[in-house]
């Protein structure tokens, strides 16, 4: 639909290069997925008085409420704990949100996938665009808290930039992978939602890792989400992220991309049938 050149489709198309071509073609249609994403955000808050401000309000309420109760269990002081929760939970919703949104990224776009031959990746970008918007609003709350806690700019803060880049890179692959798998196997959506509920409690957001004993804190290292949050949160709090976290995140990024490319190469062409 979107090209004036010749389109040729056969049963023997190269699917791996097709996957990357799909990602690039989708990226070029930025205007379309931004419009889609903006419509979706507006629709969600349509006819509510405060509209998008609810994202900020809900987030401030959560962070405030949690900090009042849970900081009592921590050896860290109150402002540290508040920052810890505010940044950590924003990162957590973005990372885990990509997994849960990924489950519906293609099933929710059924009307478009079954009617127009668009690159599948535009639905991925639309979904990520929307979660970035939410993340940005939540981060405003976190930024206010950081400044109020007496922020002193330092070079280590800049480490957050590569962390954001890596999170976005992961988001694309995770959503593509989860989108394909859950379109084919619908049970995955339910599995993911039951795991994410557990993840909120086993990830160092509501508690601080250093408060745990030695053995328990090593157990946390088996939680990949903890590492993704660590590389984003630590530099913002003026701390150096542990090298282990970067190693784990780097390795997982590679794994996720390989898995996405493999899934796309074997499943992408059948997607329209599954919806």
């Amino acid at each position, binding site marked *: 639909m979107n090209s*004036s*050149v010749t389109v040729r489709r056969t*049963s023997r198309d190269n699917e791996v290069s097709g996957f990357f071509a799909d990602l690039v073609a989708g990226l070029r249609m930025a205007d379309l997925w931004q*419009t889609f994403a903006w419509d979706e955000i507006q629709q969600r808050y349509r006819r509510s008085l405060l509209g998008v401000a609810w994202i900020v309000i809900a987030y401030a309420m959560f962070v405030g409420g949690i900090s009042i109760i849970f900081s009592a269990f921590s050896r860290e002081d109150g402002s540290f704990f508040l920052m810890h929760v505010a940044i950590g939970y924003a990162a957590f919703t973005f990372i885990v949100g990509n997994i849960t949104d990924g489950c519906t990224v293609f099933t929710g776009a059924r009307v478009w996938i*079954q*009617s*127009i*031959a668009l690159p599948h990746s535009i639905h991925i970008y639309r979904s990520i665009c929307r979660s970035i918007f939410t993340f940005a609003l939540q981060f405003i709350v976190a930024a206010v808290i950081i400044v109020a806690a007496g922020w002193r700019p330092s070079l280590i803060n800049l480490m957050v930039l590569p962390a954001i880049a890596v999170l976005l890179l992961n988001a694309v692959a995770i959503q593509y992978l989860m989108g394909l798998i859950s379109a*084919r196997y619908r049970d995955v959506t339910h599995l993911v939602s039951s795991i994410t509920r557990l993840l909120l409690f086993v990830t160092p957001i509501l508690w601080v890792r250093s408060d745990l004993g030695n053995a328990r804190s090593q157990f946390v290292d088996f939680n990949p989400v903890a590492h993704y949050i660590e590389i984003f949160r630590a530099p913002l709090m003026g701390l150096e992220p542990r090298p282990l976290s970067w190693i784990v995140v780097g390795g997982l990024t590679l794994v996720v991309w390989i898995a996405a490319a493999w899934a796309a190469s074997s499943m992408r062409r059948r997607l329209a049938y599954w919806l």
Partner: protein
Amino acid sequence: MSRIRVENLCVHYPLYGRSRAAAGVHEVDSDFDRMVRDRKGHVTGVRALQGVTFEANAGDRIALVGENGSGKTTLLQVLAGVYAPDSGMVEIEGRTTALVNINLGMNAEASGHRNITLRGLAAGRTRAEIEERRAEIAAFSELGEFLSLPVETYSAGMRMRLSFAIATAFEPDVLILDEWLSAGDAAFRKKATERMRNFVDKAGILVLASHSPSLLIDTCKRALWLDAGRVRAEGDVKEILQVYGEEMDRRQVGRDERARLQIEAAAEAREASRLKALPRSGRRGPEDAAAPQEVADGYTADTDAAPVPEGIDGLTDAERALAAPDLMNGAGAPAPRRAAARIPALSHAEPDPHNPIARLMRRLARALGR
């Protein structure tokens, strides 16, 4: 320059667990060879297209005819790029716009104007180009102020007007339309037909699937007749429609006959199963005689009586009563009323002879009833 080339195109429509259980019950008929089966004989897919080959060049207006389930829509969806071919090749030169399903390709919660923007962007147009055409689309669709309302408030005809107006406004080289064009009123149909003609005069290609001979003759020159996923014939639209119509009349006669025979066979089988089960119910009190019998009826496959052919569950309660009149009336006054009270609930449930849990439940119910 626009061109469509389709070579030996095959598409298998996978079912993924939908309606697998019913597969074994189907009798073998002319449709048999279109089912893809696994080793156990369960249907895993449908051969929607089996080796379709055709070509269309600039200025061609092709009518797609064929009975329901012959593969017309699947072919259009493959041309639109929605479904990938399982084997064979599809090559399209030129910008393609497809209107295959009226409910698809719109954001129902967004306004008509917003959907013009979305569809324009999806067609690869810039915002400037979209704004340039907006007035024309609004005028052609004749929707007026409705364009600022969400599309979900539109009627089917209004949606169709908007879809058609958008699709043709951006002047695609290849236009693919499914039969829903007939949802429009006479005035719009005339307008649409004219627009399709103009479009093809600009060296575009039109592929139109429809069951309306007048629409096809008005719009198209050539016709492609699809039959069970294969190209049955290709040629002048009037000739093809003539031959197609005759063949369909012939087939319908055969089908009516077969349906009549199936209904008769079903009635016979019911009668046989009833007679066989009668002595057993005789053992119980006369009051209970009717009710358990009716319970068994819906699920004949599980009893040791002869299996009831497919279609029996489609019978209404009245037909059931007709098929077993003495049973409904003979067992005294309270029994028929009780039977009538139970049947509706059961006839809504889908008897699935292969469902092990349902079989277990039936056994339990029968054991408890004794």
